[in-house]
């Protein structure tokens, strides 16, 4: 499964969610499918996308929050998984694209390449719904179930270590940040 195909499969459902992504390939590929004002790309602070999603989910329980994380990113913040599990926000869907690699910095193998099981780690941390999927169809089903489950979910999607040709996009970091905050805090925006 390619990560971009997985995101493309669930893209229509993202229109009414708050979406937070990690840096690199995930951010560039989601922007190539189509940027929306309710998407925020954390282009650095590696590991903190899930924490940022938790901050939004706890602050705004009426909104559905989707985090697109990565294996090497969540490996930097495994403690954060225990914090997610501790507060179990019902409005958070945590997707980890696991390509077993630090792709954007040269493709070095991550610890999932030698058997570390992120869904198992999430489950053991106390995340109530966890699964690992390896096909687009299985991802689509798991994502839609999680979106409607009303329970914190971590979905580990096994994807190929293949990304876009370049990671810098035309969307500046600050433009994204101000647009995103305005969308979240502007009552007239279309929300869930």
């Amino acid at each position, binding site marked *: 499964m390619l990560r971009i195909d997985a995101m493309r499969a669930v893209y229509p459902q993202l229109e009414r969610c708050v979406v937070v992504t990690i840096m690199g390939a995930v951010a560039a590929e989601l922007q190539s499918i189509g940027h929306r004002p309710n998407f925020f790309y954390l282009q650095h602070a590696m590991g903190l996308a899930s924490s940022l999603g938790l901050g939004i989910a*706890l602050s705004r329980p009426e909104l559905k929050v989707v985090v697109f994380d990565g294996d090497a990113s969540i490996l930097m913040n495994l403690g954060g998984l225990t914090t997610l599990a501790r507060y179990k926000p019902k409005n958070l869907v945590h997707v980890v694209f696991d390509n077993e690699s630090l792709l954007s910095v040269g493709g070095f193998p991550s610890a999932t390449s030698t058997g570390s099981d992120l869904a198992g780690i999430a489950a053991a941390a106390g995340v109530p719904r966890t699964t690992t999927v390896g096909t687009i169809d299985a991802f689509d089903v798991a994502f839609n179930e999680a979106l409607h489950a009303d329970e914190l979910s971590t979905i580990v999607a096994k994807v190929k270590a293949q990304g876009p040709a370049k990671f810098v996009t035309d969307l500046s970091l600050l433009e994204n940040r101000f647009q995103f905050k305005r969308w979240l805090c502007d009552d007239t925006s279309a929300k869930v």
Partner: protein
Amino acid sequence: MPVSVANSQLIFDALKACDVRLFSALPETWLVHLVRMAEDDPETILVRLAKEEEGVGISMGAYFAGVKSAMLMQNHGFFAAINGIISGAQLYRVPLLMIISHRGEFGERDPWQTEGGISTIRVLEAMGIPYDRLDDPASIPHRIAKAQTLAESALRPVALLLTRDLMWEE
């Protein structure tokens, strides 16, 4: 444990008066009462962290979502959060109110706190983080309010250092 309940209450009340509604925290001796107050107050959310850097992400999310927050941490926790502060809050121009207990200053008896005490202000200055020391109970409300005002007008992290004279009664 001679941590000042009265001054912890002054700090908590001042933060609430600034509309802070979400706290992230890791326990540390000087912060025990503040953390308990944040947990007991029905109007505030307390997020107990595994490591302080998570708190930067949580505060960024809360800010984007329109909720004011504060981080409660020791100076060593601040050191542990540095990458998140630089490549998260500073990179994205997010106001971040950091309440940092300044362990390792004059009067410190715990040998393990002493290196951190020496480095805290130098690290804050190297990062360009405006800071103030809270050492006088009477000045707590307006110093906290002014720190929050600058964080929001500058769209940058700011730090308030909790001192031994304020927090420790013996």
